[in-house]
């Protein structure tokens, strides 16, 4: 826990408030307020649960020293990227400790999937991380194909890689907008959403649905490319670099943005690995771990690309990493379109499959990191156990490590740089 130097301590708002409250009460002829059960307990008691703490850590967070108070950020806070609550212990404007409280969006998707057939599981995982829907379907599809012992045709693999990279581009593009939005910059998010809508329209023209695409099938994809998709793709490819660069120009060299992201929330590679942070956030700390290279799935061993890393590990590096990966994805899409073979897009697989008993693990690189599925079959029509590892759920553990000693206003800025999506965090 960070200790604040008493020399630099700013005037304590709690003390000032207490004095003001006592003055007003005296003027109104009331007795002084005292913390008793059922009555207003005073600033220093707000947010403390009315039950004994269950763990050491909970006791540590919810016991206040003189001058500290608890502030709830969320659950309905516009910049928590979903429904999440951060209990922030503050001393004045300085964060002392953070405790994330999750579960507001918990739908029990794993349990639902264990009661669904293998085909319908691919529809349940869609709303999990709702900004990377294609990735959500990719890992279960690979796992079930391993279990069932079927391999999708080559063209299906290429279409999968194409839609997955398109999804990565709009997800990273939104992160750029949200990060600026959480610091008060409203313009970039509008352009980010324009760019996103172009890709979403593109993907809906191939999958038939707009946000929860439900495009992957066990053994292939639902539809082949069509004329509308291809013509839209060409238009999009002609404009995308210009659009991205326009958004980038608004943010990258902005003085306020740089001041609030550089040297902010710096995570070393060693800490990031220990905390389970993966994906662009880990690569921004200098660790070249990318599942597409480390354990190539789909067709990624046929494409040429390098793992991009940054050195700094701060919020700004995480932002730069997203931009670099957008450009890398565009490069990958060019290669995929060049190499895409002709042929069918769906292997012949029955609607209800009963894989033989076994276990399969499939990991993919989602825009938020390592997304993996561990599926166990007992020979029946639905998975015996279906486990999803969501990257933003695990990456969230970095926030309580990074925030102590920083300003309250920077909590959301650092959190946005990790780009969590609460649909995935709460499953």
């Amino acid at each position, binding site marked *: 826990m960070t200790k604040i130097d008493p020399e630099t301590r700013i005037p304590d708002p709690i003390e000032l408030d207490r004095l003001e409250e006592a003055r007003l009460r005296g003027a109104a002829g009331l007795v002084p307020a005292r913390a008793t059960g059922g009555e207003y307990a005073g600033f220093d008691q707000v947010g403390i649960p009315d039950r004994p703490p269950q*763990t050491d850590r909970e006791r540590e967070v919810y016991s206040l020293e003189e001058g500290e108070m608890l502030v709830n950020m969320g659950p309905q806070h516009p910049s928590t990227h979903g429904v999440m609550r951060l209990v922030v212990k503050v001393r004045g404007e300085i964060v002392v400790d953070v405790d994330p409280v999750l579960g507001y969006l918990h739908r029990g998707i794993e349990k639902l999937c264990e009661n669904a057939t293998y085909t319908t599981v691919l529809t349940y995982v869609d709303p999990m991380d709702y900004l990377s829907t294609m990735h959500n379907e990719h890992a279960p599809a690979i796992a079930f194909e*391993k279990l069932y012992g079927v391999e999708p045709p080559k063209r299906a693999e290429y279409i999968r890689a194409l839609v997955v990279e398109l999804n990565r581009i709009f997800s990273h593009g939104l992160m750029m907008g949200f990060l600026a939005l959480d610091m008060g910059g409203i313009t970039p998010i509008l352009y980010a959403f324009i760019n996103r809508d172009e890709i979403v329209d593109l993907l809906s023209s191939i999958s038939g649905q707009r946000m929860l695409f439900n495009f992957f099938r066990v*053994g292939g994809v639902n539809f082949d490319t069509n004329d509308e998709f291809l013509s839209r793709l060409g238009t999009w490819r002609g404009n995308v670099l210009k659009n991205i660069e326009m958004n980038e120009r608004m943010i990258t060299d902005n003085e306020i943005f740089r001041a609030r992201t550089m040297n902010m929330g710096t995570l070393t590679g060693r800490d990031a690995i220990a905390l389970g942070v993966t994906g662009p956030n880990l690569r921004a700390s200098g660790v070249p771990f990318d599942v597409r290279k480390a354990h190539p799935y789909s067709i990624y061993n046929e494409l040429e690309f390098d793992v991009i890393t940054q050195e700094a590990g701060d919020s700004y590096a995480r932002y730069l990493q997203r931009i670099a990966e957008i450009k890398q994805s565009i490069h990958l899409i060019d290669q995929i379109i060049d190499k895409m073979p002709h042929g*069918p897009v769906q292997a012949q697989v029955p609607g209800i499959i009963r894989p*033989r008993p076994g276990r399969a*693990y499939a*990991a993919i690189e989602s825009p938020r990191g390592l997304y993996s599925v561990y599926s166990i079959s007992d020979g029946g029509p639905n998975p015996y156990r279906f486990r999803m590892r969501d990257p933003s759920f695990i990456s*969230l553990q970095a926030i309580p490590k990074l925030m102590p000693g920083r300003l309250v206003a920077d909590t959301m800025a650092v959190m946005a740089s990790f780009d969590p999506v609460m649909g995935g965090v709460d499953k």
Partner: protein
Amino acid sequence: MAHLRRPRPATHALGRRRALSTPVAAGALVRTLTERLGYNLGNLWTDEDTVEFTVDGARNVEVLTTLRDDPDLEFFMLADAAAVDYGTDAHFEVVYHLFSWKHPAWLRVRARVDRANPRVPTVTGLWEGAMFHEREMFDMMGIIFDGNRDLRRIYMSPDYRSFPQRRDFVLPDDAADSPAAGVNPLERPETWDLTRFNEAPAVTFPPSSERDDAPAEGVEGGETLADKSRPR
């Protein structure tokens, strides 16, 4: 009459069967594993990109420390930690998936945990990030991790008493009958107050004579067309 037969799909459309039991090119890994962990290595098994073995739950820290710190293994990253319930008359398993640069395979360590006394040492000392994994396993399966200093519920509310992902927890329709019935009143129908639904006045459309868009058939006996079309 060969031309009347349905054409066979091309081979690539049919999908090549994957060989489920083909060992990966991970012979070196298997050799090193048996060398270093031979005495508590059970059920060594490989598929196309995974090597797995089982250990006793009580030895998980010892085994994972070797896997992480041994210079020939260096499984430095905990990719996943999940709990599996193998049924009321069987056992739990805590499954760790590890990654290493040195070996071309995911390593899966299945730690067996007693179901009557589901306690297992924590691995938060090895990877700090195992904290949320273990909190989730505690919340969903009720496995207790000895030494974890923040083992509270993470998704369900703190006063919840069941463990929803155990096999003996049935879905909320009949959760009240399950041996692990929760304290959430929504899951206990006998506590529901349904009077406001029973006493609510029936919603009917105004008579067809007063409506401009009335359908050709009138509404009989207070029943709407929507009521009629409903299955009885």
